[in-house]
Structures are given as structure tokens and as C-alpha cells.
């Protein structure tokens, strides 16, 4: 199935879409293929990601990917982010993602990793 129920559900009812006014870490990037933009903001404390939100005008796949990703990272030690890999994310999306759309899945991952880069020891 091209767009799994997970993707549809997360796109229609995202749990982590929004902004964090008191963010400690943030990053924004663009998918050069389509111009889609994703911004991720995180609040960090005790070396953990306390809260995270994403914004951006993007396709359903990128939005679902961001939403699942943030759900996974919230509450985790910041360093966890460097262990996150694309295959695990693809599995969570439960969809048959074509090679041309892989970038839509990986964009939020790259944004999150760069947002948290160097923040592992922050308190």
C-alpha cells in the first residue's frame, strides 16, 4: 500500500506538530528535490529530550515521519538520536516507500540530528 494507515493517520492528526517558544535546540532544512521545509524544536533537560515539536509545509510522508520520530525521541537521552536510522523509521511508517520519496522520510531525521548535535552534554 502506497500510503499506509499510519501515514494517513499521522498526517491528519499529528501529535507533535507545533512550536516550542522555549526551545533549547532547533534546526530547519529543505528537501532540495521538492522544496519541502521541516523545522524541529526541542526542549532539553538532564541530558534528555523533554519536549519536541515540528512545523513545515510538507507532504504526508515527511509529516508522518517527523511525527513518529518525535514521538520516539521525547523522553530519551539526547545521545539516542545518533543511533536512529532510516530502516527503523521506515518500519514504523509501515509503507512501501519508493526510492524517489526516501528523502521525504529522511529529511526530519537529518533535521533532528542536526538540531541535537552537540547538545548531548547539555543540562
Amino acid at each position, binding site marked *: 500500500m502506497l500510503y499506509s494507515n499510519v501515514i494517513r493517520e499521522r498526517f491528519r492528526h499529528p501529535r507533535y506538530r507545533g512550536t516550542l517558544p522555549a526551545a533549547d535546540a532547533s534546526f530547519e532544512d529543505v528537501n532540495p528535490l*521538492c*522544496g519541502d521545509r521541516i523545522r524541529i524544536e526541542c526542549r532539553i533537560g538532564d541530558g534528555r529530550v523533554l519536549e519536541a515539536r515540528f512545523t513545515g*509545509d*510538507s507532504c504526508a510522508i515527511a509529516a508522518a515521519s517527523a511525527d513518529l520520530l518525535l514521538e520516539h525521541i521525547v523522553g530519551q537521552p539526547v545521545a539516542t538520536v545518533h543511533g536512529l536510522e532510516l530502516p527503523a523509521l521506515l518500519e514504523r511508517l509501515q509503507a512501501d516507500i519508493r526510492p524517489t520519496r526516501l528523502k521525504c522520510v529522511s529529511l526530519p531525521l537529518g533535521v533532528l540530528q542536526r538540531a541535537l548535535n552537540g547538545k548531548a552534554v547539555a543540562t
Partner: protein
Amino acid sequence: MNLGELCRADFPILRRAVNGEPLVYLDSAASSQKPVQVIEAVQRYYERSHSNVHRSIHTLGEEATELYEAARDAVRGFVGARFREEVIFTRGTTEAINLVAQAIGRTLRPGDEIIVTEMEHHSNLIPWQMACRDRGAVLKAVSVIGGAYLDLDGFARHLASRTRVVAVTHVSNVLGTINPIEEIARQAHAVGALVLVDGAQAVPHLPVDVNATGADFYVFSGHKMLGPTGIGVLYGRREVLDTLEPAWGGGEMIKEVWIDRAQWNDLPWRFEPGTPPIAGAVGLHAAVEYLSKLGMDRVSAHERQLTAQCLDGLARLPEATVYGPINPELKGAVVAFNVAGLHPHDGAALLDQRGVAVRAGHHCAQPLMKRLGIVGTLRASFSVYSTAADVERLTQAVAALRDEF
């Protein structure tokens, strides 16, 4: 039988299925499909006559040269250039624009101005940005107003004695707007500026007489007009080409070479360094013959009818928003639209599931997307082989999108 149904049989790819559905190919503005006449011409060339051109003193070399130069004559006639020296083969529209931008760029002085428009494809924007950056020249852009048209009053205000080049598209690859290039060229010439027209979306769809447009340069691609990829055309007015230094060096573009200098070749070869796209030219020749046989008046009437049908079909769907002129008389064979609540890439992927191929995204026109305040659009575009049934399948598939999310 109308033109689309008549032509379809010549395009083998249209017989294939995609995702279990008969293919509906509505992405001809990105690249058109090829008739068997073009495919066979290229194959025949490779099977019988391939060799390098111009300097090979053997039968194959002579045949290849003859075919290559015959393609030039065919293109000259097709677009109404006065002389064969005015037709320069390039690898495509993008390369043709870069060639002109680099050749003219070398002569720019700080404070000189180049005028582009907000509806340009990146290929008619970035080369001018680069030329300006390198020479301290100033880039100005004509606004798009009403979501569809160039602000011609603003254009007139931009024009000045400092204006060196006006670079404008004939037909927008997103909005479909047909720009008044004759008038634009007239005003630009009045201040002594040169005019480059991007005809990539015009030559495949409308009767074009480059000489009548008044443009100094008129560029287009083979692959959007039923020809092969890797071949494009730079038409340049002879008096203007004569004043330009070649943009690039190499074999073929010289008459005599010494270790420290060279004497340039005559037009048009002066601007064609290296081995040219010979098979591409042969294929383009066949494409030009195919289109000529149909008649470009007939082609444009056929496509206008499909554009009208598409606009009408989408207007019946409250969730669809169409961009650009809604009068098909003012529009090329392209309809850009969005479906409420659906990102264009998701829309295109879902249409593809039903065998309908459309383009989605920013269409290499990000400044235009910014002006329209959107990230991208879906885009249906037509060619000689498109039919009313294709448009019907599209509008049905778009209507079905509302149940997808």
C-alpha cells in the same frame, strides 16, 4: 477522429500499463514522448551512418555530416530563422541559455542591468544570476500580477539605458501564460537591450516564427517537442552572433590554431565546440517533420481544446484550485492546480496509482511559487497525442483524491 486519437498509434510507449492501468501521460511539458518515426530515425542513423561529423573523410563521416546539417536546415525552416548560421545546436534549452549568458556576461560592466521575470524557469534565472554576480551587474525581475501575467508597466519602468539583456519565457511552464514577447522585444530594443526568449514550452505547442518575434536569441529543447533528449537549439540573430565571442572552446569551433592563439570558425560552428549531439539532431529532424506534417496551427488548436476541457473539469471540483490564466486562448498546453489539504507530491503519487502521470512540485520555478505563496502544484500538460479521454481520466482521478486522506 481527432488529432490525439490519430497520433496515439505512433507513440509505442502509450500502449504500456502503469500500476495495472492504461498509461495516461500528462507530463509532456517536462518531456514529451517520442513517435516511432523519431525512434526509427535515430536507430537507422546508428545502424547505418554513425560517425563523427565535419572532418571525417570517409563515407560514413560524409553521411553523418549531411544528416547533421540537414537537421539544421529543417529546424531553420520550422521556426522561421532567416539563415542556417542562426541555428546553433546545443544539448538543450539550459545549455543554450548558459551559452548566451556566459558570452554576454563577459562583456557586462558593473552597474549594467539584466531583466528577468518572476515566472522564469530556474534555467532562465540562475545563469543570469551568475553572470551578474561575476561582473557586478544588477539583476531585476518583472513581477507576476494577478497570479498569471507579467506586470508590463513595471517592465517598462525597469527598462533603462543600463539594461543589457531582457530574458523572458514565451510560455510559462507553470501558469501556461503566453507572454507578449513581440511587444517586450520592441520595448527592450528601444533602449538598446538584447532579448532572449525561452521557447521551451512554446515551440512544441504553438506556431513560432523566431524572426517575427524580434528576439535576438530564442532557445528550445528537442525532448519537449517529440525529439530525443540531449539536443537543443539556440537561435541567434546573425548580426548579434557576429558580435559575440564564443562562450566555450574546443574542437570544431576553430579555423586555425597556434599554441598561443586561435582563429574562430564561422557561424554556426563557432558556438558548437566538441562533438555535437548528432543522433539528437537526426531525431529532432524527424520530430520537426512529424510536427510539420500535422501543422502547428492544428496542434495548438487541439491542445487548446484539451486545456479548455481540463480547466472546465477542474472548475467543477470545489477542492481544486487552478493557477494561471483560466482563458485557454491565453494559455499554453499546461494546467497547474492544487487539491485542498493535499501536498502536490502526495497528489501525484496517488494519481500515479491510477496510471495518471502528472508533474508535481515547484517546477523549477521557486520564485514564482513564492509569489503565489505555495510550495508547489500539480501540473497536467498536453501534447499532440493527448486525448479527451486522457483529460477525463485525470479529472475523475482528481475527484477521487478527496476520499484518499
